[in-house]
């Protein structure tokens, strides 16, 4: 397992944001966490990323328990898990060029400098559908889709074992959403990282996920293979969630992805 979360609890004061979650993600798998805002999805993600420490329970990333290591080791462990945020422009330092943005993590992994580093950056950017023309641009000069590709390049430059996708497409235009989703699917096929997909967009989940966990009030109320969950939801809340899709849509859900690149 790339990620094993056991009995995870995270409290903020009196609020139990995450209240006893168990889940695990296998190499190459896409695990989707769905739920409304405030259900604890993001807190779960931040625990997995090692940005905050759990109140109790354990998060084991690639065999290392984040609760049992020093903050120095935790800092290095973070490199095995990367994240792509919802808003691509907010997730890129506005003062850095695209080249510097991607080179920053790339140099951590490869130790290259100068021309060699630039080549590696360009190779990764090209894999994601960007080119040398973008190197000297600043994030605000890019479209949402391009910026999200850069964010993806930045996250993948470290070759993480697990990539957390926090609503990766919900800030993008519908036409661009499909492109990014297909890109994510391709990258995974290509010996890429496992995905922990955090989303309330069930169409996105259906498109990518192998397994789905439904979060409600800080707990995982249902967990099932994606097919099974969409066809035969077991929990009441899951049914409500599925029925809340506009157009009453378990049947119509694929339509929102109708635009293919």
């Amino acid at each position: 397992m790339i990620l094993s979360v056991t009995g995870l609890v995270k409290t903020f004061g009196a609020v139990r944001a995450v209240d006893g979650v168990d889940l695990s993600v296998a190499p190459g798998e896409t695990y989707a966490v769905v739920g409304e805002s405030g259900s604890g999805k993001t807190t779960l993600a931040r625990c997995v990323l090692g940005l905050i420490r759990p109140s109790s329970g354990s998060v084991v990333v690639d065999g290392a328990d984040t609760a049992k290591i020093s903050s120095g080791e935790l800092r290095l462990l973070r490199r095995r898990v990367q994240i792509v945020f919802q808003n691509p422009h907010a997730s890129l330092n506005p003062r850095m060029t695209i080249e510097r943005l991607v080179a920053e993590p790339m140099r951590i992994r490869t130790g290259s400098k100068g021309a060699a580093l630039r080549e590696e950056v360009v190779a990764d950017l090209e894999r994601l559908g960007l080119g040398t023309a973008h190197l000297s641009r600043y994030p605000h000069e890019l479209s949402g889709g391009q910026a999200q590709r850069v964010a993806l390049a930045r996250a993948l430059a470290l070759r993480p074992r697990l990539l957390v996708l926090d609503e990766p497409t919900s800030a993008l235009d519908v036409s661009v959403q499909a492109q990014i989703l297909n890109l994510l699917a391709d990258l995974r096929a290509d010996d890429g990282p496992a995905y922990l997909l955090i989303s309330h967009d069930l169409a996105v989940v259906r498109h990518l996920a192998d397994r789905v966990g439904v979060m409600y009030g800080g707990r995982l109320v249902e967990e099932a293979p994606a097919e099974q969950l969409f066809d035969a939801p077991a929990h009441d809340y899951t049914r409500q969630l599925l029925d809340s899709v506009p157009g009453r849509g378990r049947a119509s859900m694929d339509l929102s992805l109708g635009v293919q690149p």
Partner: protein
Amino acid sequence: MSKTPPIATLPERGVYRRLLRDGPAVLGFALVALLVLVAAFAPLLAPFPEQGAGAASVADRNLAPSLTHWFGTDAMGRDILSRIVYGARPALLVSMAVVGLAVLVGVPLGLIAGFRGGRLDEAIMRVADMFLAFPPLLLAMVVVSLLGPSLWNAAIALVVSWWPWYARLVRGLALSLRERPFVEGARTLGLRDITIMRRHILPNCSSPILVQATTDIGTVLLAAGSLAFIGLGAQPPTPDWGLMVAEGRTYVFSHWWMSAFPGAAIFLAVLGFNLLGDALRDALDPREVGR
């Protein structure tokens, strides 16, 4: 992106509006440029360079403004225009040094306080608050009376009362930047805090710091002049504007030019830096910060 100049409809009006809007900026830039040039080329520009540097000329005491002495002469017979020209040097040097040092002290402390938070933040900011609790000039007067009056002690005193403003400014910026996704992203790269602060936080604070520093050069210039005026700053025969105002004070009703011209020099310098600061704020503000 949002700030495209309105050219399309009424060209004349657009130009006029832009001129009006840019007028103060141009004036500020011109005043500051003039000050810098005067300071740099003082020996060439001053009609009586040796008097500007301090040499007395007893025969020409207390002369009213004339063609030879545009701004008149002081009680020691020194040409006031030359003194003002030479006075640009300490004025500029001290105020830039003070602001530079205040930035050097305040910015790192504010960065650490804002980014790290917790007890370190409390400790740094409470110390800063202690300094901020006193009126800056009063605090500077206390420090000078401890160190002894001189131009450079006045400068040190002003740094002591100015650094907390930068600490507070940068702390606020760092605090809001810390929560931004790109900083969280930098943390997931496993970067050290110091690297994140230097590479991701600081560059995004640079515009507000620059704006504040520019405006503060004017304010500090005035404060240094005030200290000199009450005898706690530059000492004679330094050609300091504040000192000159003080020296002319006794004769202000009979020999108005002795105080009036150095006072005007201070006024114009402060005005220049303030206008330049405002212009920079307008020019740098959109998009870069606080989005």
